[in-house]
């Protein structure tokens, strides 16, 4: 009896150690790093890239979250028809072309075909002319309120997610390349600070899971490196598009912590820092995760 109890204690201690410390080499590398072949070869998205310079000593390689999913979920992203996120891209394109607001304009009135948005997603979030860090949602709402004279959309509303999805898809395959220097630097520093700050009763920082334990089990699931190049994602659990800030909110909530609001300055800064960790991975939006 006592030997069993001792064993149990030792195991509990080991489990606790896994969660409370950040061993430098606890991560598990993906077995393969095959590209995501879309529509039978129309487009190939690499799933691995050399880590950006600012991650020197942290990661050698950065990986798409797609590698950490099971075959059925992976397959859904490999065909634009089977990818349920694409219906919302269609809805976003419809919205792009719909006139709304007192100015009698649609997005297309100024920007013409949505293909003109190619490259936008790869550089988001980005410091605007006034020196503020803006997410794509901010740019969309600025156009809506100032140029279209329409109401701003809620950050996590279906219409907003449909639009960000439709705009993201235009950059699919382009490497993520957010600016982190110059005016962006203080925001990036703020985001970096948050990434390594332990939140909640579980006292977990982003890094505890996504840097120290990617590839490892978390309950019946595998952790990824927490890259954001696939956002907005179609998440099978919600059977809906999920925005980056919603995912951040969920992660902090899961630490049993008070979370920040979607569309808060804190999450914009975190969005920039996390995006910069994925600089070099292709825009996958709209990806499929579970």
């Amino acid at each position, binding site marked *: 009896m006592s030997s069993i109890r001792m064993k149990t204690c030792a195991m509990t201690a080991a489990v606790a150690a896994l969660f409370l410390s950040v061993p430098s080499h606890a991560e598990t590398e993906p077995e393969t790093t095959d590209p995501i072949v879309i529509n039978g070869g129309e487009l190939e998205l690499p799933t691995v890239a050399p880590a950006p310079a600012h991650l020197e000593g942290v990661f050698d390689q950065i990986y798409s979250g797609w590698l950490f*999913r*099971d075959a*059925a*979920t992976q397959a*859904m992203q490999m065909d634009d028809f089977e990818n349920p996120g694409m219906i919302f891209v269609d809805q976003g394109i419809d919205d792009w072309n719909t006139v709304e607001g007192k100015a009698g304009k649609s997005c297309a009135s100024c920007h013409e075909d949505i293909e003109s948005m190619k490259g936008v997603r790869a550089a988001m979030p980005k410091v605007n002319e006034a020196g503020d860090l803006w997410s794509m949602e901010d740019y969309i709402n600025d156009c809506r309120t100032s140029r279209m004279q329409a109401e701003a959309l809620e950050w996590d509303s279906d219409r907003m997610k449909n639009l960000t999805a439709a705009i993201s898809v235009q950059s699919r395959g382009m490497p993520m390349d957010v600016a982190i220097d110059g005016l962006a630097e203080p925001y990036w520093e703020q985001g970096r600070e948050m990434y390594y700050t332990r939140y909640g009763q579980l006292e977990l920082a982003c890094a505890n899971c996504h840097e120290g334990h990617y590839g490892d*089990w*978390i*309950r*019946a*699931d*595998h*952790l990824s490196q927490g890259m954001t190049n696939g956002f907005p994602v179609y998440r*099978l*659990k*919600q*059977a809906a598009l999920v925005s980056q800030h919603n995912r951040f909110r*969920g*992660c902090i*909530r*899961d630490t049993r912590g008070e979370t920040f609001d979607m569309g808060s300055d804190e999450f914009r800064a975190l969005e920039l820092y996390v995006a910069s960790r994925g600089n070099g991975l292709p825009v996958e939006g709209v990806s499929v995760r*579970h």
Partner: protein
Amino acid sequence: MILDRRDVLAAGAASAVAGILPWAARAQEAEAAKAVDDLIAEFTGGAEVTEGDGITLDAPEIAENGNTVPISVEAEGASEILVLAPGNPVPPVATFTFGELVGKHMASTRIRLAKTQDITAIAKLADGKFVRTARNVKVTIGGCGG
């Protein structure tokens, strides 16, 4: 649905320790089994159903998320295929009726599973006979809020 699954898994774990099913769970399972038998009888009109040959049911062994589980059924020459998820609060999933222009008598869709269970498919074949098959799908608890 998610709470349901957790409850069931928790109950399963408890019963594994105790070695028996708690009576409430046993009664519930008996009721579900009866409901499934009734549904099959309704589909077959009470005719005999044989196990196995002539029908295939594809589904993942482990579903990452019970909300979207891809499945596929096929039965050569079948006029109808009934799919049941006996472990769901509402066991019927879909009934496929094939017309004359169908290429293969197959269909794929995505379904919800409340918990780990044996999905069941019953086909009415061209000769009017019925065959059934089942496939176990383990529904896991996801990592983050899953």
